């Protein structure tokens, strides 16, 4: 029986462990000193101690992980998302010791991990890219020339940046001139690479991404698209599949999905991954980047297609056949929405670690909640503030919204601040309900401002009565 | 002409309203100006809403001297009665400064004695809010008699019900003896003071110039004299601290404290304690850190926090069991025992013993503080108080030696020999007659005689090391059964909880006698 190590924690570790066991393998999980009672261990057969005080010493410590992999005769490692999932060194070290990395081959990670290289590859493969510089820009004058060509506004972007860092919008030549050196300096200090690109900045953009699943036998498929436009500070808040903006435009859907497949094939992709696009109001779309890992929002694709992405990812890595034989086997049906539940202040959206001392779920039919929450969980600052993903599936978008509204009311977490009230507001906000939103949704509509309306003293009385009831019994 | 029912009801309503005004609106406003609440406001804030049942609201004094018959207040300047605090029944009196300056007369004293009798007979804690100018001179010796009757009742109640005094204003002259005999004295910073003779008299007799606050304010009694047990920043704080205290202590003797609720698991490991005791014996550490690690929810109500800081006393709970904690503080005076710390701990222990509260003792004591101050001050009889208190106690006693336990101080700090129930020690503990340095000087005097300079240092170091290996550990004591168990620090909390559970039903009988003769 193969030992498959899940080199991650939290809800994704649970998700992967479920798939590992489902496939009949032994799920091996890590526990650390600052989280000895992690709930993901419940889904693992073997528990290994990963020593260290913080993430650098534990989940990011390639040396220790490799030595544990050797010691416990691990056959394959699933890195989850974040941590070492897109680290080519880790990939290479696993290969050295003959252990399978459950993800794409190292070259794909390397090429798609660099913004400049991936943009060039996309362009070469005939994938539309955001107009702008072909590679790194060395001077402000060169930047101005490119900007004139593609038209203002433009975005100055660090090549090695990510997660929204190292980017500045310039609305005219003067702003471009002013910001150029600053972005280069920022890029050097934050990412160690001063390389900067200039790109056309799309107004009223939609963030549309296509799920790719491929095997080691040369088969590359897509599982349709997702829209993740509800974001703040470039972190996704709500995702849905399929995209309400694309809606019934099947031609556009096919176009964008096939384009994604084209790019994946160009790098000989052989695992699960996501190709991200930015789409303007005029429905023209441009390649943004490719994420060569399983993503947080994969459940909504699983819901509308019935495809188990994680299980298939493992099967692909082990050289087995996927669950389906052709693109036609993958059909979409219905609609799904995911709300990321995070330990953060619902108004300021800043992380708010703390200890959970109450947890209850009362959901309607059609809800899936992937989480790592339990009564007593201490959400620590060095871990991801995202503690769960509330996913709803329904016949169509209105049905899903209805179910999600009921589900969010039935999700009770006590002891820490969460963004549950924010989701409650968004799910009832008229623009979101109408499916009318771009990546500027949060900054323009500001749903967080009305969250304070939900504060009522009655809430406190009820909680106090509940506490008293437990104590006097 | 007879009155109708309606008129009779109105009469009562009006009388009630008059009584509640005490000395009048103007005087009540003056209380507020000084940052003080009125007597009734204090009761209403302290007690649960609508739980106060007042006694003797319409009592008036009978004095006919000096024209006092012209001024009579309903209630005669003190509010007494019973009520609940967080559901716990208590008896309370609150002195009303707006009536004659809160001065005590015969009727007033009788009211207090009545509610104290009630408290004793019904086993509820007695809370006294003191805010009084002293005796009512016009009533002459009757005032003094009134005080004496109260003092007598204080003593009858002592050890039967907890008695708590909240000093929220002046408390001077003979009046101080009532709080002095109660179990807990709370003083409010800046607005309360206690002294037997005030600054004016002091000036005329000893020619010292001193303010009321310096002579007997909250800081003085909490830091210098050891008269008060708690200091509060304002009246609200004082009332809250009183509530906090009541959550730990039982309502009366022979009534064990109710087990409380805590979410703090009793099996929680004390990892932090592994390294808390420094290996270098010269390095001090904060004993409070050990206490905080072991108890529930880090909730420790410290008793006489600012007095005799070399010993820590206070209430806490372990697994919901309310206990008293006595611990040497190595960070202050190296944890030595002296006059003040001995008397502080002795009184605390006797309270816990009287009210069936188990005592946890944490020991790290190098001995008694040397010096003429101590010797001439009577460390002999004061230290004996501590020894007496521990020996007399029949409540469960759990002792944990964390580091040093030398000489007589080892015996005094709840050792096995004075009938502590469970004696534990950390691997870092040293139970010996004295430290290595001193011991070597005495035992190996001959070996060291005549040596000087580096030869002396080398030989001494060798002998010290030898002594340390043989005696600087708990194992000699363990081999004789003087220590029940040498435990790993990380198991401290769970161990203590388990022992407390076993000792719940401890029943020790002592020979019958009128009472012992504790050195005072």
């Amino acid at each position: 029986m193969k030992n498959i190590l899940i080199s991650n924690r939290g809800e994704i570790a649970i998700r992967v462990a479920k798939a590992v066991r489902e496939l009949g393998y032994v799920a091996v999980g890590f526990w650390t000193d600052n989280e000895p009672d992690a709930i993901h261990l419940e889904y693992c057969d073997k528990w290994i101690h990963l020593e260290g005080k913080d993430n650098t010493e534990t989940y990011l410590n390639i040396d220790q992980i490799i030595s544990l992999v050797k010691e416990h005769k691990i056959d394959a490692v699933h890195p989850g998302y974040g941590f070492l999932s897109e680290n080519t060194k880790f990939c290479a070290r696993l290969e050295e010791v003959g252990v399978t990395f459950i993800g794409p081959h190292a070259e794909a990670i390397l090429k798609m991990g660099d913004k400049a290289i991936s943009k060039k590859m996309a362009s070469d493969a005939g994938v539309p890219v955001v107009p702008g510089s072909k590679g790194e820009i060395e001077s402000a004058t060169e930047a101005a020339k490119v900007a004139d060509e593609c038209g203002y506004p433009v975005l100055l972007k660090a090549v090695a940046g990510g997660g929204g860092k190292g980017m500045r919008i310039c609305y005219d030549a003067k702003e471009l001139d002013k910001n150029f050196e600053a972005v280069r300096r920022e890029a050097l200090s934050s990412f160690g690479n001063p390389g900067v690109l200039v790109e056309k900045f799309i107004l009223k953009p939609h963030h549309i991404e296509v799920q790719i699943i491929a095997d080691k036998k040369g088969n590359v498929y897509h599982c349709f698209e997702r829209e993740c436009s509800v974001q703040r500070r470039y972190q996704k808040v709500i995702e849905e599949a399929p995209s309400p903006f694309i809606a019934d435009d099947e031609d556009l859907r096919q176009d964008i999905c096939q384009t994604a497949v084209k790019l994946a094939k160009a790098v000989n992709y052989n695992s699960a991954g996501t190709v991200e696009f930015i789409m303007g109001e005029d429905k023209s779309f441009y390649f943004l980047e490719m994420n060569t890992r399983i993503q947080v929002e994969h459940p909504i694709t699983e819901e509308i297609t019935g495809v188990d992405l994680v299980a298939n990812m493992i099967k692909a890595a082990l050289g087995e056949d996927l669950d389906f034989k052709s693109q036609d086997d993958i059909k979409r049906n219905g609609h799904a929405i995911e709300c990321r539940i995070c330990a953060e202040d619902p108004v300021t959206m800043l992380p708010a670690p703390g200890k959970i001392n109450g947890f209850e779920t009362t959901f309607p039919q059609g809800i899936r909640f992937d989480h790592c929450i339990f009564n007593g969980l201490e959400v620590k600052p060095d871990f991801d503030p995202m503690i769960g993903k509330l996913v709803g599936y329904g016949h169509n978008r209105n049905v899903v919204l209805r179910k999600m509204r009921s589900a969010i009311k039935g999700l009770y977490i006590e002891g820490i601040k969460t963004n549950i009230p924010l989701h409650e507001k968004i799910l009832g906000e008229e623009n979101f309900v109408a499916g009318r939103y771009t990546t500027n949704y949060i900054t323009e509509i500001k749903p967080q401002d009305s969250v304070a309306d939900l504060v009522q003293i009655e809430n406190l009385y009820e909680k106090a009565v509940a506490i008293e009831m437990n104590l006097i019994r | 002409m007879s009155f109708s029912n309606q008129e009779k009801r109105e009469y009562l309503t009006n009388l009630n309203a008059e009584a509640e005004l005490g000395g009048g609106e103007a005087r009540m406003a003056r209380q507020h100006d000084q940052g003080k609440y009125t007597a009734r406001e204090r009761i209403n804030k302290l007690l649960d809403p609508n739980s106060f049942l007042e006694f003797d609201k319409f009592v008036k004094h009978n004095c006919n001297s000096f024209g006092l018959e012209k001024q009579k207040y309903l209630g005669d300047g003190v509010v007494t009665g019973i009520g609940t605090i967080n559901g716990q029944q208590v008896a309370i009196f609150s002195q009303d400064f707006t009536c004659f300056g809160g001065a005590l007369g015969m009727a007033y004293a009788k009211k207090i004695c009545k509610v104290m009798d009630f408290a004793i007979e019904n086993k509820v804690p007695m809370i006294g809010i003191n805010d009084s100018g002293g005796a009512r001179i016009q009533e002459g010796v009757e005032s003094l008699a009134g005080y004496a009757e109260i003092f007598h009742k204080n003593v009858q109640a002592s050890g039967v019900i907890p008695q708590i005094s909240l000093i929220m204003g002046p408390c001077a002259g003979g009046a101080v003896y009532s709080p002095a005999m109660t179990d807990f004295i709370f003083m409010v910073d800046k607005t309360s003071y206690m002294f037997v003779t005030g600054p004016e008299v002091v000036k005329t007799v000893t020619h010292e110039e001193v303010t009321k606050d310096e002579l007997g304010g909250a800081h003085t009694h909490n830091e210098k004299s050891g008269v008060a047990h708690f200091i509060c920043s304002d009246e609200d704080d004082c009332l809250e601290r009183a509530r906090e205290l009541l959550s730990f202590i039982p309502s009366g003797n022979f009534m064990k404290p109710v087990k409380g609720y805590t979410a703090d698991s009793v099996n929680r490991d004390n990892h932090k304690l592994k390294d808390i005791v420094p290996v270098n014996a010269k390095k001090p550490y904060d004993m409070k850190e050990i206490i905080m690690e072991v108890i529930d929810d880090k909730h420790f109500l410290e008793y006489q926090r600012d007095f005799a800081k070399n010993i820590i006393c206070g209430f806490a709970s372990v697994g919901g069991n309310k206990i008293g904690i006595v611990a040497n503080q190595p960070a202050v005076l190296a944890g030595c025992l002296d006059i003040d710390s001995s008397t502080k701990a002795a009184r605390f222990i006797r309270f816990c013993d009287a009210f069936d509260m188990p005592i946890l003792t944490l020991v790290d004591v190098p001995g008694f503080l040397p010096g003429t101050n101590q010797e001439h001050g009577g460390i002999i009889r004061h230290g004996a108080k501590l020894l007496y208190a521990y020996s007399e106690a029949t409540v469960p006693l759990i002792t944990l030696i964390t580091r040093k336990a030398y000489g007589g101080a080892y015996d005094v700090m709840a050792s096995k020999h004075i009938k502590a129930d469970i004696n534990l020690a950390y691997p870092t503990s040293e139970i010996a007659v004295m430290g290595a340095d001193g011991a070597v000087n005495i035992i190996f005097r001959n070996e060291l005689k005549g040596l000087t300079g580096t030869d002396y240092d080398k030989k001494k170091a060798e002998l010290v090391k030898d002594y340390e290996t043989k005696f600087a550990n708990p194992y000699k004591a363990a081999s004789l059964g003087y220590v029940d168990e040498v435990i790993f620090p990380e198991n401290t909390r769970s161990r203590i909880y388990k022992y407390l559970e076993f000792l719940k039903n401890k029943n020790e009988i002592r020979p019958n006698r009128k009472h012992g003769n504790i050195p005072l």
Partner: protein
Amino acid sequence: MRYYIINSDGKEVSFDITASQKTQSGSVSFNISAEDKSAHQYFVKSLAGKNYISKDQLSWKKAPEISDLSGLVNINESMKVYRGFKPSGLSKANAGELVTDMPGKIVKVLTTIGAVVNQGDTLLILEAMKMENEIKAGCDGVVKSVHVKEGQAIESGHLMIEIEE
């Protein structure tokens, strides 16, 4: 039982809860009397191992499940719950002044004027009662003045170091 619910800004809500006997239907009634003298009544009933709460004994909803008193959250305010009494608000003595409370000898001074220090940093070693006491900074800040030097014998109450926060 008095409840104090205090949020991180110090804003306080306090009220008293009194529980009464079980009613005929098996529910326990709780009466809340708030600071503003308003009164509220809630009923709690146990069903399938969970508690349900109602204001009128007709409409019931699941009562919040709270296992310990450490924290409550009301939408975007996290608050601490105190049951029975409010904890002490006595401010600590001026953390910027390091005063010794025992006589002793300064063995080592580990800081200088102008040094940036963090709370808990050891600033000097004082030998007293044959113990080497590490005197630590009570707050973050910059050392404003050092009033002692190595080898100096000092009395208790001596101001040793001042830190500007």
